[in-house]
């Protein structure tokens, strides 16, 4: 627990976004995670992205499951609606929220345990449904809350703090997503907000399920020699090949010169992502090539980061279900529930 309070004195004028709000208007309560936890940087990046896109704080739904990472929604955007679900069930609750109110900006924060172990099934089906949401996995390869056991994302050979090697293969959420038809896959590092914030902004503007895997070191149980998810290891093995910057719909277009080939992709809400890919011929919309790139870089022991895969053509959950443009929760009960006569008619069709 922290003993020092956030200063309550008025501070110097901070920069304001299009809504006239400062970054402080997107803050939450004081973090109670361990000092130096990567998750706090993820929180700060989410806050920065929401502020930068001028999303009204009250329009956000922030959801999580169980775990260290799942505590973080408490630490940003106090004006948002929030939901702490049962362990691993955040994706299901988020799907429900997105179904009921398509006007919400749904932000889910989960961890490698919550998403890749107990909640893997829920995550898989939310990806398949292409629920429109930003799904952040704060990935540290360890169960911090239960004192440092390997998680499902720990690499083979990665050592625990006591020196035991991990023997089981990791679940790579990027490859998993690719195999399930994910439409937005990105990986970032909590220690590099210059890259992470644009990724989160792109994810928030994406027209479907945006899965962002953030390597977020656990300072307590997984930041030692022999760990493959420590600050030092990630810095030494990170491949920052695929660079992306988002141009918001109403924002100015960047005019600064960028070397190398640029690929431009328009997002659902009209904003555009500019890719700068260093590997020759890397195409973030080519699922096969992206897959082989990911497998290859993992085999080399490298961590590919950036906006890795993007598909803006696949319809999202509402489009697939042909739901009304209105928010379901705005509909009067009579329209939402046509009554038992209609139900009987519908069932008769299936007999």
């Amino acid at each position, binding site marked *: *627990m*922290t*003993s*020092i*309070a*956030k*200063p*309550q*004195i*008025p*501070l*110097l004028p*901070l920069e304001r976004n299009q809504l006239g709000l400062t970054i*402080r208007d997107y803050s939450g309560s004081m*973090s109670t995670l*361990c*000092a*130096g*936890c*990567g998750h*706090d*940087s993820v*929180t*700060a990046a989410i806050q920065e992205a929401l502020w930068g896109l001028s999303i009204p704080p009250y329009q956000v739904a922030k959801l999580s499951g169980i775990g260290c990472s799942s505590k973080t929604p408490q630490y940003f955007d106090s004006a948002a609606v929030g939901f702490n679900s049962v362990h691993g069930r955040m994706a299901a609750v988020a799907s429900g929220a997105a179904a009921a109110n398509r006007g919400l900006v749904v932000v889910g924060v989960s961890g490698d345990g919550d998403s890749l172990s107990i909640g893997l099934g829920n995550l898989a089906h939310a990806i398949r449904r292409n629920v429109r949401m930003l799904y952040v996995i704060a990935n540290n390869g360890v169960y911090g809350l239960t004192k440092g056991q390997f998680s499902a994302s720990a690499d083979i050979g990665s050592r625990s703090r006591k020196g035991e090697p991990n023997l089981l293969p990791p679940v790579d959420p990027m490859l998993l997503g690719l195999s399930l038809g994910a439409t937005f896959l990105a990986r970032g590092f*909590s*220690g590099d*907000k*210059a890259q992470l914030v*644009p990724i989160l902004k792109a994810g928030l503007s994406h027209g479907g399920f945006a899965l962002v895997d953030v390597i977020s*070191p656990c*300072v307590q149980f997984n*930041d030692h020699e022999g760990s493959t998810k420590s*600050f*030092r290891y990630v*810095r030494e093995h990170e491949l920052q090949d695929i*660079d992306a*910057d988002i141009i918001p719909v109403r924002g100015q277009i*960047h005019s*600064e*010169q*960028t*070397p190398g080939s640029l690929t431009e992709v328009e997002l659902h809400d009209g904003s555009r992502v500019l890719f*700068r890919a260093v590997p020759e011929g890397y195409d973030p919309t080519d699922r096969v090539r992206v897959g082989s790139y990911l497998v290859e870089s993992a085999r080399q022991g490298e961590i590919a980061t950036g906006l890795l895969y993007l598909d803006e053509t696949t319809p999202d959950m509402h489009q697939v279900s042909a739901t009304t443009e209105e928010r379901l929760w705005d509909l009067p009960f009579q329209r939402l529930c046509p009554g038992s006569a209609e139900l009987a008619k519908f069932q008769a069709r299936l007999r």
Partner: protein
Amino acid sequence: MAELAPRRTLVPIPVTNVEDPSYFHKVVDCQWACPAHTDVPQYIRLIGQGRYGDAYLLNRKSNVFPGILGRTCDRPCEPACRRGRVDGDAVAICRLKRVASDLREDVGWGLPRAAEARNGKRVACVGAGPASLTVANDLMPLGYEVTIFERQQLPGGLMRTNIPAFRLPAKVLDEEIAVILDMGVDIRYGTEISSMRELLQMGYDAVFVGSGAPRGKELELPGRHDEVGETHIHIGIDWLESIAFGHVNKVGRRVLIIGVGNTAMDCCRSSRRLGGEDIRVMARRPRQYFKASPWELEDAEEEGVQIVVNHAPRRFIVEDGRLVGIEFDQVEWDEGAVHSRTVGTVRIDCDDVILAIGQENAFPWIERDLPLEFTSPQLAAVDELTMQATIPGVFFGGDAAFGAKNIIWAVEHGHQAAISIHNHCQGVPVAERPAQTMRLTSRKMGLTQWSYHNDYNPHGRQEMARVDLRRRFERLNLEVELGFGPDETAREVQRCLNCDIQTEFQAPLCIECDACIDVCPVRCLTIVRPDWADEDELRARLNAPAENRSQAIYVSEALPQTGRVMVKDENLCVHCGLCAERCPTAAWDMARFELGIPYAGRPAEVG
């Protein structure tokens, strides 16, 4: 995308040297701004703990007259206060100093004492004002025999003669001066030094001139000398002195004060107490160019004094040998108030005029054929560091040195002159100054426990209670300000931002987790690649651009993992300690900074 900029020739900015006492000292804005470098945050903390005596003694160590200064200081600390930059209202530092003085218990144990054995050296001081008294304060404990020559019958210099008793009661003045004189200072009242040559021949080992800037400026306009008999045109500082010694006890109904410095404020408020009813302070320039401190202007206006701007005196109107008014040019100023043009004239009738347009040094008693050089007809050549004139062993201080300043500068001059006198008498070159020292001590007490409070009081500055206006003018020496009570004191001490609790950074421990950067409420921290062109570019590239050039930028050594550097803008930091609280490796620590200040015969020590 930031890495895409082409690489250029780089001018490395040196890693900040925090071992230099002046680096962290400068971060403590109030202490840095104070000529005597009073440890303000610590004495405020002591007041908060109810340790008024300790707070008083901490003050006294550097500024010698806490009770006097707590009422009359020019407060260079307050415009510098960080709190002023944060929400516009500086901490009421000066008033808290008065609290320490008002509420102190017996502090006799901590006051200086004369040495038991004299060291055989004799020092002569001219004038018993704050500068000479400070010299005596510093030298008596070392065994010096100090003689002060004072032309008046009472000590204090301008503190007694020019500051009205309703601002500074005689009791406070007498008490603090007595501490010094009672060490056995040989003070000769009613003794005016009329010849420097004779003084030098009297065999003193050193001479200190602390005789002030005793001559009020004249306003030579038509009619100035046309009065017959008793004059109604007074020189401000002389007039105040006459009031202080009881020679003047009334003034006409209508009074005009020419000038808007602090002396003018004392003159108009004194007029109000001597029978003046229609009192106007006449200023040539617009209000933002006044010399008087804003609080002194407010005090005068509260007492019904009118402040009239853009009036330049043209002539004194004397009828039948008696002053009846002044004719003024009404002027308009351009932007910046550099040039004016006259737009009309106006006559304002009055019974008395008080001239308060500044004061000058005057040394009619210093023979100009001595090897004591002058830089102007009024000012002797005095070294700013050593306070020594061009005759070895002759020192100047206070207003006598460089013209009219204020009490706190006089005290600091006294301290420096005392060091020089001690050097001079011990055969050490006067330019050999003892060094300042520093100490940093961690405030960390446990995992998340700190021995200081960062929970600031968000409220505005506390108002000072004053004597009711209906009663205020009953007696000339009725002190107007009542001092802070316990409630105001408790609230005001919590407004301090603890600038002396420094953010100390150990680059080798940093793992660049960004925790400090994420939690910093003012975004004053940035980790950057050391590839900026110059300091301007560095300042522009920070998370929050560092626009206040008067405040330092801290640059760490290269961080172990990436070779980037931690940069901190000292201007924005509110010393809340969240960086240290959220740092997993204790690379950041909150450590109290203490400045060790050397005094004569006492090397710098902390604690």
